[in-house]
């Protein structure tokens, strides 16, 4: 039977520890894998230009853009891969991509 979430190892070490069917019983654990570490550019918002259309939110392939309390948007940089799609799609030009180094 399925192991309880508490007993479950984070990641199988050996082949016989793999759950049958590679099933993952701890739902939502993909959030533990941070995929934003290798970006070379980050999106930066200028809320003065933002019309709150939500296009950036819809287009982000990582689904890492969230709406804030005041209705604007921001990216969770733990998961943003710096693809620049949000900046490309934001037609009022409220998002610019900045070098990570800067």
């Amino acid at each position, binding site marked *: 039977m*399925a192991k309880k979430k508490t007993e479950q190892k984070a990641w199988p070490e050996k082949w016989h520890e793999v759950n049958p069917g*590679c*099933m993952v019983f701890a739902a939502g654990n*993909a959030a533990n894998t941070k995929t934003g570490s290798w970006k070379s550019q980050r999106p930066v918002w200028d809320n003065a230009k933002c019309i709150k259309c939500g296009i950036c939110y819809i287009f982000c392939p990582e689904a890492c853009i969230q709406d804030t309390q005041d209705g604007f948007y921001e990216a969770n940089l733990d998961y943003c891969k710096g693809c620049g799609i949000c900046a490309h799609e934001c037609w009022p030009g409220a998002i610019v991509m900045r070098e990570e180094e800067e």
Partner: protein
Amino acid sequence: MGKRVGMEVAIAAAEAVALCNIDVAAVYPITPQSHIAEHMADIVHDGRIDAEFITVESEHSAISACAGASAAGARAYTATSSQGLMLMHEILPIVSAMRLPVCMANANRAVSGPLNIWNDHSDIMPQRDSGWICLFTENGQEVIDLSIMSFKIAEDPEVMLPCVVNIDGFQLTHMIEPFELPSQAEVAKFLPPRKPFAQLHPDNPISMGCFAMPDTYAETVKAKDVALRGAKKVVTRVFADWAKRFGRKYNVVETYKAKDADTLMLTMGSMGETASAAVDEMRKAGRKVGLVKLRLWRPFPVEEFKAAVAGCKTLIVMDRALSTGGAGGPVATDVKSVLYGEKKKPRVLNVIAGLGGRDLAVRDFENMFDLASKKKDETFEFYGVRE
């Protein structure tokens, strides 16, 4: 008790599956499997079983629907053939990797091109590495028996892998034969309802068929391989259980007059019956010939196969498919690699015959036998191709 019936084998395949208390059938009709699809649809439409018949728009969808249904805990069934199986190819390893016990009938048919709707094994051979349990049938009774057993094998907690039952297209699917159809009560006793290891349910969210990085993928591959190899034990156990209940005995490797034979022929599927008749003829002529038949093709029954061919000097493998540009027929190349490390091994000769539905009569097996016997090396030979 079961009852004696006479019907077309494809119809019987659907009738057998109907006895298995399936929840979902997702089938796309394709020659020569169509009669299975049509009859299955009739059975569901007439309300004879409480199942969902999904009319899908392709075989890719058929197997995908089965995967989804099975993940949700259903007993799912599909049937296909040739190009349909090729279209399913992408999904087949996913179903086995997710350890979903979907069962399928494959009406073996040659693959295009040129377009050919008749029987050979070139459709199943490209799928042999997809992690499915792969069984072959020789006659109508075996189609019924193995179709029912396939669910029990696939759903065993030690196995949890999909299973395909191969039925030679036309040669078998369109034959009208007499056989014994078990009763609903007998099948219900033999095949309890499915108890899934895990299932998709909104109250208990889990993920199936997830992402694996290079640091874990190899472990999942090994886990699946070990599970598939281990399925042989369960296949044997289910065969024994069946024999006890229904009196018909099956083995993963079957032999006919093989004990004292110098030369053995090896077949899979419906050719076995004609080959048996050829063995009888050749025995009458004083030749020490026997027959080995692979009932289980994946997992390959290594030990049973080695034991079956241990005493013979020559093994002639009759392949109904060719690994184009490869070392010969797929069965022969497998057999050769299984025997490679053995100290005492037979000479393995390979004949490719019966492609695209070409008839193989008793006389042809005798001719193939003579053709192979004359061969000096162990390469393959086509039989009956006009020079």
